[in-house]
């Protein structure tokens, strides 16, 4: 106890800050999701009701939005695995002196935030952007191909933004995997594909799972990237929540939408924990 005393005290400011700026507003968010906004006013009625949740789960529009957001997140995870695994393997095994530089470049999208690279992508993908401009000047197209305001555009942005979250955990896992394991498998007669499938992939699984969960949750809750690249035409769940909160000013309904997304992520987190426990036992 004596050793713990001072350390516990030192956590007090942090805990107090979290209580004030996160826990208290969060409690209000939970409560407000059970309030309602009567017709003809923007004021809220704090009588507890399930009307917001009923609306979300009975209206196909919101369920479709949820499905679309889940789909975009899953595809982002899949593309990130395919693109990220070779990069992580290269960094862990082959990069040598380039390792630090490569890691720094990989970290850039995380360090500079979502807005800057997304606006860069707008210049690249817009109807008057570099991609369409090049295609037009080569005479391949007359009118621009829509890339902004499409799911493809959003996917490009999400993968670009969150790829490092896949690569970094994978590098951490592959670093601890001695090359001698693969050599041992080869010496026992395994073909290269078998080495990958039977040795490398199972041992890299914790990194793959961690990276997938990170990329999935980041994509699911991403707002800036889908909003800018989707140009308000592709409604993700975060965009729907923002529209209700900031434009329609129906805060109770927006709170309920936020709670549904939070519930989904909690369920996913729980499922991963159960899976890992199952894998260990």
């Amino acid at each position, binding site marked *: 106890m004596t050793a713990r005393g001072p350390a516990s005290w030192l956590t007090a400011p942090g805990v107090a800050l979290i209580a004030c700026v996160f826990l208290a507003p969060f409690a209000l968010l939970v409560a407000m999701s059970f309030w309602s906004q009567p017709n003809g006013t*923007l004021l809220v009625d704090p009588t507890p009701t399930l009307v917001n949740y009923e609306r979300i789960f009975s209206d196909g529009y919101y369920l479709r939005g949820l499905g679309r957001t889940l789909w975009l997140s899953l595809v982002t995870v899949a593309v990130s695995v395919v693109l990220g695994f070779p990069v992580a393997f290269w960094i862990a095994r082959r990069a040598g002196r380039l390792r630090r530089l490569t890691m720094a470049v990989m970290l850039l999208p995380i360090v500079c935030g979502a807005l800057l690279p997304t606006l860069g992508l707008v210049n690249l993908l817009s109807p008057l952007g570099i991609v369409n401009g090049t295609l037009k000047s080569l005479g391949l197209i007359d009118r621009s191909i829509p890339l902004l*305001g499409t799911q493809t555009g959003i996917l490009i942005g999400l993968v670009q933004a969150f790829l490092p979250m896949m690569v970094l955990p994978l590098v951490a896992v592959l670093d601890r995997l001695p090359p001698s394991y693969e050599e041992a498998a080869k010496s026992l007669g395994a073909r290269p594909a078998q080495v990958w499938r039977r040795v490398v992939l199972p041992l890299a699984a914790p990194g793959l799972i961690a990276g997938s969960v990170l990329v999935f949750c980041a994509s699911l809750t991403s707002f800036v990237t889908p909003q800018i690249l989707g140009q308000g035409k592709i*409604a993700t769940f975060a965009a729907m929540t923002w529209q209700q909160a900031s434009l329609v*000013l129906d805060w109770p309904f927006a709170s309920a939408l936020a709670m549904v997304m939070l519930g989904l992520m909690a369920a996913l987190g729980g499922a991963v924990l159960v899976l890992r426990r199952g894998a260990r036992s």
Partner: protein
Amino acid sequence: MRMNWKATWSVAALSLALSGAATAQDFAGQTLVVGTWGGDIERLLREHAARPLEEKTGAKVEFLLGGSGDRMAKMYAEKSNPTMDVTFQNIYEAPQALADGLVMAPDESSPIYSDLWSGMNDGCYAMSLVGLGIAYNKDLVEEPVEWADMWDPAVKGMIAMAPYPSSEGDGLLGVAARLEGSDEHDPDTAFAKVRELGAPALNYTSLDEVFALMDAGEVAMAPMISGYVLAALKEWDNIGFAFPTDPGPVLVRDMVCQVANSPNPELAAMFIELALSPETQQAYAEELLFGPTNSKAVLSAQAAADTINTPEEVESLLQLDWPYVISQRSDWTERWNKDVLGQ
């Protein structure tokens, strides 16, 4: 522009005179908080309303900049303890804010009230008059341009729209319903007609964005609100702006509101009076091409031609039932997302 300089000089002279007369310094140390849009609007309000008020009263005027939706959210969040004294809102927000008790009803006995065009002070005081018309690429669209031309198959998929909810979107719904012989109280007809336009080529969030695409021929037409658009258009040779006649352009107003139970009600009333004065209104018209609501504002021939500034012009505009429209906001937003954007 000559009128504008005159106005600026007269305000400057007035301010000097007021600062010389060291009377009414009763408000020293107080800060009036005014919520409005950034850019030119803030600059004009600072020059023509805030500075004279500061010099006259010794108070400080602080601007809180952002979108009007942010200000609505702020007013609702601070209902019991407002920090904002004056706020500028849209035509559809003001009546709702009044109905919910967030702003004070315009004072009919105040001298400035009778200077404003009658019937305009709906919820708050009317600050400026603009109309929803059509911006178009002159090479792709034949003049004169009417609303019905937007439904021409030749421009299908080449219409840009403002994101919904917005006055532009509500205006387009009102127009679409009228083209089918109905009005905004018949949303089924309105949405069916707007849906025929197909998904918008662009959901524009800035004028540059839509004009660049219109210039390049990727966008043919866009329902847009006069004012800023007319001022910005002077830089684009092949883009025109039309006020259609069948039906006429949709009247859109900016409103200035005094927040209920605000910390500085007297200063707020004085600021609003300065904002609605002929000087400020003339500057709005000359520089931004926003039509004045003050009947005593005198405009240059150029500004008069580009703005809605006479009772007859106001009469020709299409007026929507905004209190009804705002009551439908939640449903219509969902419907717009589904029917127009195909989500």
